[in-house]
């Protein structure tokens, strides 16, 4: 039987939204307060959803220890208490929460083998959250609702 497991993590990071492709005035208009030269930060909440058959031997979809270790090393270790603009991933990409969400999906999809990745959900604040189901997810496939 197929079940879907979601694990929630937290990390904090700072960043500035600024695109070198557009003028200072346009940056100011598009990104508003997030364009502040000195940056700002958030306490992010990350939800990773994996899915698969429940293993009859363990009763589990995924080895939680393996998931926690991978996320801790590859995501929390990489982004936690960092300035996102200084990281390689964001040298040519504005570190919006949309881009951070898809970047985390890519890291998991590339390296995590213990279960099938289904979704990454990233909360920037309690008011804003973003979900990514991968590049293949067609419109409407993503959500069962």
């Amino acid at each position, binding site marked *: 039987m197929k079940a*879907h497991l979601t694990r929630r993590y937290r990390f904090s990071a700072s960043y500035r939204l600024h695109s070198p492709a557009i003028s200072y005035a346009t940056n100011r208009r598009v990104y508003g307060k997030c364009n502040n030269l000195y940056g700002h930060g958030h306490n992010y909440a990350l939800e990773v959803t994996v899915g698969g058959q429940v293993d009859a031997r363990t*009763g589990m979809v995924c080895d939680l220890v393996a998931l926690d270790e991978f996320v801790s090393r590859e995501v929390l270790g990489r982004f936690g208490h960092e300035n996102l603009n200084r990281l390689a991933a964001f040298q040519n990409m504005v570190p919006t929460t949309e881009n951070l969400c898809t970047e985390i999906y890519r890291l998991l999809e590339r390296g995590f083998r213990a279960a099938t990745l289904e979704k990454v959900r990233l909360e920037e604040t309690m008011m804003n959250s973003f979900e990514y189901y991968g590049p293949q997810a067609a419109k409407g496939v993503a959500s069962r609702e």
Partner: protein
Amino acid sequence: MVYLTRRAEFSASHYYHNPKLTPEENKRLFGKCNNPHGHGHNYTLEVTVRGPVDTRSGFVMDLVELKEVLNREVLDAMDHRFLNQEVPEFRNRIPTTENLAIVIWQRLEPKLKVAELHRVRVYETSDLFVDYYGEL
């Protein structure tokens, strides 16, 4: 089609152990959860049903009826219980959050007549939950 979700809470104890494996393998696979005396959680259950809105009542289904089914089939059986010992489905199945979601689905699905069961979500803690949609 409208989806209705009802939340309930229950507290229970459990431990993880597969009798087909050696004590060492059990310890390695399940770690602290292998303690045979059990440990406990405050579970949060979310049950989602779906259906057309009845024109006469304006309901997908009568919430009182849903609550009664939840109380009878899940809470009475599992709240303040040792899942391994007291819930028959877990005599031969490890009471992981995954299996808990599946067992709750199997208990509720045949009892719901008016609306169709869509999803069972079980939170073991606020940082870990499992969704089951009845998929084989």
